[in-house]
């Protein structure tokens, strides 16, 4: 080779030296941390660190006036680290814990299956009394220790469905969010579920040095690596605790629901679903058995009928139909239709009144023929090309009241009910149908189904003369500058002239104040109320008694819907209950003990 290549082979010594030097540096550092520096070794070779989760206290929940609805109380979880739980005197330990040998083995197996080395809950929610006794003796049993935890307590035994409850996380929930560990609690329903992220806060971690005798000795590195838990955010609900309690009192023994909304905000003032249960029943170790009892109860107390019960709205739907007829221009407030009473066809009238009737009287008397004829005229109005276009006009307006859809707010699991689509009728009647075919819609029967929440929302929209807010539970967050979901503050505008709302409101007012008003016996002096009775035909039994209302008429503070299942006419039960609720909310107390007494006489035995 001619090329004058310099031989760099001496550089192997440089590279070899780098290798050796780095290895020596590693060994020096190892020597320091393993032999020289004692701080890594702790007090003895057998001490271990124990990572104790610091549970944040879950956010408290208040009603609109600051009355406490949910707070926390301390209980103790007995934790286990299976790999450290050796040489346990099982017999004495079971006696101490007051559990059977079988329970001991199942719990141990469960913990071992989760992890040999990561702590998990052995026995959960030991009360303060039991705790003192057990903690004293616990040093005999290595691998076990106590962890404090809070449980939910409800000072008032109300609003179980709204508040919801918390329960141990499932495997699926743990997989979805790694924040949760075995035995953690998570909101399962109601606002506990919807506001889980806000209420739960953030867990912290305390690191303790534990010696061979299972005694906690000191904080590791003076707590330098500890993290403090961040407490959950408190929530203020729009709920009025007094009104809620009163509603539950009135509905006791009946099946049905009450929903009261503040029309100016969309906040839920009260939501009663009956039968119900005391939220305190689903707390602590008894939760499991009580929960399955409630689940298997034939009256289904766990179901929130206010949001998931669907009913034909009956005559209460005449308000919506009246408004749409007015908006379509086929009728005015002065248009009159004849009524032949029980001889009317195709739908007979169930009330006795003079004929012909105009809008106000038709509402006051709940006259079926009036609304049928108005509906029929609208369906064949010349402004629409054909009845199907007219139907779409009707359909679009009906759904703009929030009917036929579920609500997108903090109320979980709202049901959409049903407003039949044009396509549905096309399919059912092979494309040939007209007003006559679907006449039941004119009086709120047929395929229409609504939930009590939707009905209350319709009352709020009429009270507001053309708009509503998505109904929601929350009023505000308490100890934070976080504001509520802005979509809850958005107005939903209904495309119907304000003037028509005023006409309908006038009619609804005469339901209470007119000589023939279907709710005239539920009138409240000094409070103006607008409302409408309804009787939903129930093919399975006695009809459902329905009522919707708002008050005061000119500046509504409360809109309400009441459904009492299998109780007959709306005027008999739902109307007086609604009027009592309105009086209670606006006046603060009820001046009509005889009405109250009568309402309370209906209970399930008589149904």
């Amino acid at each position: 080779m001619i090329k004058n290549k310099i031989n760099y082979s001496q550089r192997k010594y440089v590279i070899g030296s780098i290798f050796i030097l780095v290895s020596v540096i590693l060994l020096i550092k190892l020597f320091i941390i393993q032999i020289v520096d004692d701080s890594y070794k702790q007090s003895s070779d057998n001490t271990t660190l124990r990572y104790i989760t610091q549970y944040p206290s879950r956010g408290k929940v208040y009603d609109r006036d600051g009355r406490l609805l949910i707070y926390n109380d301390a209980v103790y979880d007995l934790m286990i680290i299976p790999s450290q739980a050796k040489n346990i005197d099982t017999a004495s330990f079971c006696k101490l814990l007051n559990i059977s040998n079988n329970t001991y083995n199942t719990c141990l197996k469960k913990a071992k299956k989760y992890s040999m080395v990561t702590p998990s809950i052995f026995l959960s929610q030991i009360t303060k009394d039991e705790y003192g006794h057990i903690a004293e003796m616990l040093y005999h049993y290595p691998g076990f220790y106590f962890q404090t935890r809070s449980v939910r307590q409800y000072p008032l035994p109300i609003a179980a469905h709204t508040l919801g409850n918390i329960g141990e996380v499932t495997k699926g929930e743990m997989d979805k969010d790694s924040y949760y560990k075995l035995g953690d609690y998570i909101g399962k329903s109601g606002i506990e579920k919807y506001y889980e992220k806000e209420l739960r806060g953030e867990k912290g971690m305390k690191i303790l040095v534990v010696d061979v005798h299972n005694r906690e000795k000191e904080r590791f590195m003076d707590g330098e690596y500890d993290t403090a838990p961040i407490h959950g955010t408190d929530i203020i609900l729009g709920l009025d605790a007094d009104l809620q309690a009163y509603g539950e009192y009135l509905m006791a023994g009946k099946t049905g629901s009450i929903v009261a909304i503040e029309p100016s905000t969309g906040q839920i003032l009260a939501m009663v679903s009956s039968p119900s249960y005391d939220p305190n029943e689903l707390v602590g170790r008894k939760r499991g058995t009580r929960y399955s009892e409630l689940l298997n109860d034939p009256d289904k107390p766990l179901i929130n009928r206010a949001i998931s019960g669907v009913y034909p709205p009956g005559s209460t739907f005449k308000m919506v139909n009246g408004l749409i007829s007015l908006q379509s221009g086929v009728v005015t407030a002065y248009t009159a239709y004849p009524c032949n009473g029980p001889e009317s066809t195709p739908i007979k009238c169930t009330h006795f009144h003079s004929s012909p009737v105009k809008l106000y009287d038709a509402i006051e008397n709940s006259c079926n023929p009036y609304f049928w004829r108005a509906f029929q005229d609208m369906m064949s109005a010349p402004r629409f090309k054909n009845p199907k276009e007219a139907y779409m006009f009707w359909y679009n307006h009906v759904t703009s009241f929030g009917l036929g859809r579920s609500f997108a707010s903090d109320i979980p699991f709202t049901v959409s009910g049903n407003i039949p689509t044009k396509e549905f009728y096309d399919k059912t009647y092979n494309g040939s149908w007209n007003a006559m075919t679907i006449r039941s819609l004119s009086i709120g029967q047929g395929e229409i189904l609504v939930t009590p929440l939707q009905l209350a929302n319709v009352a709020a929209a009429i009270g507001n003369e053309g708009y509503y807010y998505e109904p929601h539970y929350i009023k505000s967050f308490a100890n934070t500058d976080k504001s509520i979901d802005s979509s809850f503050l958005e107005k939903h505008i209904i495309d119907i002239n304000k003037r028509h709302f005023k006409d309908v409101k006038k009619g609804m007012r005469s339901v209470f104040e007119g000589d023939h008003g279907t709710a005239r016996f539920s009138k409240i002096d000094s409070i103006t109320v607008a409302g409408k009775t309804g009787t939903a035909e129930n093919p399975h039994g006695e009809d459902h008694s329905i009522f919707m209302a708002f008050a005061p008429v000119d500046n509504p503070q409360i809109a309400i819907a009441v459904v009492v299942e299998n109780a007959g006419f709306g005027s008999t039960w739902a109307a007086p209950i609604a009027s009592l609720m309105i009086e209670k909310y606006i006046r603060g107390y009820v001046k009509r003990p005889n009405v109250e007494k009568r309402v309370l006489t209906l209970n399930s035995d008589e149904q």
Partner: protein
Amino acid sequence: MRSKGIIGKIDIWLLIIYLALVVVGILSIYAAAFNESHPDIYDLTQNYGKQLLFFGISLVIGFITLLIDAKFFNAFAYVLYGLSLFSLLLVLVIGSKISGSTSWIQFGSFSFQPSELAKFGTALALAHFLGKIDTDPSKFKTQLIAYGIVFVPMLLILAQGDAGSASVFIIFLLVLYREGMGGKILIIGIVAATLFILSLCVSKWHVMIGLVMLFAIFLFIIERTKKNVWLLTGILIAACAFVFSVDFAFNHVLKPHQQTRINIILGKEKDTKGVGYNLNQSMIAIGSGGFSGKGYLNGTMTKYNFVPEQHTDFIFCTIGEENGFLGCFAVIMLYLALVLRIIHLAERQRSTFSRIYGYGIACIFFFHFAINIGMTIGLVPVIGIPLPFLSYGGSSLLMFSMMLFVFLKQDANRMNIL
């Protein structure tokens, strides 16, 4: 010579060191994941069982490697290199995300990390290029291509967000240094890195005072010719400018959360939840091992799942805790013996390809073990690279074994090269 079989000619010491490391690895994985309900080390549902299986596969593939013609890897160096570049590009498109970086390709239940292949491919390609008879390492063009071979895969890996694996390629500078290139670059690189870290750790003014003092000392020591004084002044100004620009870039270009991350790595900020927390746990585990350790399977710290990667990147914790300083010493000595043995063997090669390849893998092994152990004891930032032959991971064990067996073959065949 040919009468003696290939097996008889391979370097028995290197093979023994390799086998010792893998066995230590499997025992440590067993200890780290020790689970009373699966005490059988052959249990394939557990990590140690799987690692044992991969060890078997590695041995089979290693044996096949020994049977392949020695010229094969030289001839196909560029093909393998091209293949690794292709898979690096592929992973950017179809890769799956594992702990923050997109660096894995899934084949059914088996996942494979193209960056592992890229180390092997780069070592081969570099050796092939510089080993060609007509390559002149003193030419600028040669040097440019050599740097290119190293930095292209490195940048592709950086693009995956896997800074740890990318940093491995820096060690190839040492290989180039051995071949007569980059002596100055190596020094400039080390100085720049030191200044970079210093200017972030200490205030820039303190660094500059230090530089001026160094300048004064050098001025005092060296021959004060005009040329030397100017050179020294130039270096001082360049160094100060560098410090300033690092400081500026850190404070004005980086976003606050990026600054925080760097500060955590540098130890300026305490991180109680993420990286810092794990590091602290790792140091406690190793530190609590003391001189002779707590005994095999008796470690308590390492069993707490406190380090997310404890059977992979933090496997050294288990050794440190259970076998103490003695165990650590033994493992480090095994690694040192491995890399020194490889460069010793590399120097006796007749073919330049074999020599450079040998240096390539020695440097890769060295970088991995030094950085991995360094990070578990807090000497270097925590970057996720495995401990060769010890960490759990099928594709990693397989690639490291391949690299070694290719070299064993080259060495066994050295006498056949004229």
